[in-house]
């Protein structure tokens, strides 16, 4: 029987030279869901994202996307299937301008297929994408070189880079970290809007208040294991979750 679950993660395990980063993590994601992943520092959130997107090979376990086993695929093949991710440590192409940064993902074969092979308007598409994520259109900001842009803009550039691929699943690794309150406030509705347009999203976040406002469901990790799985309101009452965060900063 063909499994119709959008994303299915089974028993993922990863050790880094004796340190258990992820221990038998399993969960499911339905199409159109916005899933949050929370947990204190060192709980394995970024490792999980790396495992899902092919940057790290698991020791055991499976990742099944739309019925397809993508566990050991290369990152670019996973991206080609429609899974885009941001990086926690933002690293744009510093010498290029903001909109030139987007040309590269727009060059991929996935985009060529989806956009019908029109090459001429890559620059226009890039500018549009930047506007979608909150860059002011009629300013010189999109043309500024990436190394001169403030952190908040670089994070939004990361988002634009993902959107350039027209993904079906978007994985955001601490997108809001380092953003000011107003930047978060302006970016949150963008994410909500994307999700309402059937884009499935996984968000790893420390900013719990904002996350709980828009997530359908939240998973909590601690020391590499999943300790909770449910809607946001359940997380606030969950003893295990509270215990995990005790001793580390509560971002609420």
């Amino acid at each position, binding site marked *: 029987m063909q499994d119709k679950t959008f994303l299915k993660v089974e028993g993922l395990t990863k050790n880094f030279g004796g340190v258990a980063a992820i221990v038998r993590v399993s969960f499911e994601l339905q199409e159109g869901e916005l899933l949050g992943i929370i947990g204190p520092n060192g709980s394995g959130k970024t490792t999980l994202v790396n495992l899902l997107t092919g*940057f*790290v090979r698991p020791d055991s376990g499976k990742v099944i996307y739309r019925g397809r086993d993508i566990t050991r695929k290369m990152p670019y093949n996973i991206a080609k299937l429609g899974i885009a991710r941001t990086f926690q440590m933002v690293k744009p192409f510093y010498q290029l301008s903001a909109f030139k940064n987007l040309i590269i993902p727009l060059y991929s074969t996935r985009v060529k297929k989806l956009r019908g092979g029109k090459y001429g308007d890559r620059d226009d598409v890039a500018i549009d994408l930047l506007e979608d994520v909150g860059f002011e259109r009629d300013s010189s900001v999109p043309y500024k070189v990436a190394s001169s842009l403030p952190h908040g803009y670089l994070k939004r550039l990361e988002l634009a880079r993902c959107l350039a691929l027209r993904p079906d699943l978007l994985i955001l690794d601490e997108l809001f970290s380092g953003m000011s309150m107003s930047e978060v406030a302006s970016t949150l509705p963008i994410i909500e809007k994307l999700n309402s347009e059937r884009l499935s999203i996984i968000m790893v976040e420390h900013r719990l208040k904002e996350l709980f406002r828009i997530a359908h469901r939240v998973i909590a990790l601690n020391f590499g294991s999943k300790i909770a799985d449910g809607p946001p309101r359940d997380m606030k009452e969950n003893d295990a979750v509270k215990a995990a965060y005790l001793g580390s900063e509560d971002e609420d």
Partner: protein
Amino acid sequence: MTKRVYGIVSQKGKATSVMINSIIIYGLVNSVILALIAMGFSLTFGISGVANFAYGGFYILSGFLTWMLLNYLKFPFVLAIVVTIGVVGLLGFVTYWVILLRVRGIALSEVIATFALGVGILELFRWLGFVTYEFTLPYLKKGMVLIAGVPLDYQRLFIIGIGLALVLFLYLFTHHTRIGLAFRGIAQNERTAISLGIKPDWTAALSLAFGSAMASVAAIVILPLGIISINQGYEVLLIAVAVGIVGGLESVPGILVASLILGYAQIITGTYFKPEWMMVVYLAAIVLTLAIKPSGLFGKFKELEERV
């Protein structure tokens, strides 16, 4: 490496028990030679991430320096060795401060600068005329011994001894001493290392000094087996990297195992096929490793593969 170095005469099709013993013993010698050569390079590059493409140059320089001290200045043997190791170690240290410091982090420039240094040293000797048969280093002790029917000279026995001792030393050093752990620290995560109070530049310079000194030791012990040939300077680099790739770069057991594999593969190839094919063993090993397990046999951090 010439046929003479291995002391094997190829007798196709005649596999006697002496032949097998000969392969076992000379294979071991060869393996230890490879390990000795690879260790200095591994220490600097594999373990502390500092590229030293001048390694081959330092190796040959050590040989010629010892020769000059012995023949021009008439130094006693022990003094010549000590001075050479010291000078080359110091040279490695200075190389870091003068050349590598300015280009640290830019892989391209590190490679080119150290490579140019190595080539410069080697070709300088070639121009100065250090290319004839008179350039040999003396054996540490003349004489032979019979092991399981196979004649083995003391030099080769000595090589085995020093080689294994150095491997052990390297392992203990990088796992149990403060400096050694610092070496590994800066390769893995320079920022964390700094925050722990390790001074990366000093540590890197020291690792370069140590690595170069080990090149000296290897040269002094191995070069007596033949003449000091300048082209060997380039081969040394190839050996160091082949062993590193096959064994896994940050791993000392990896160096040992890789050397054994490559060493024996070479001897067997040299005995049953043509000696010229021995070089091809390196290339085959590199390609096979990259195809099957790119991080090498013992590579833990999979730097080549997972660059997260």
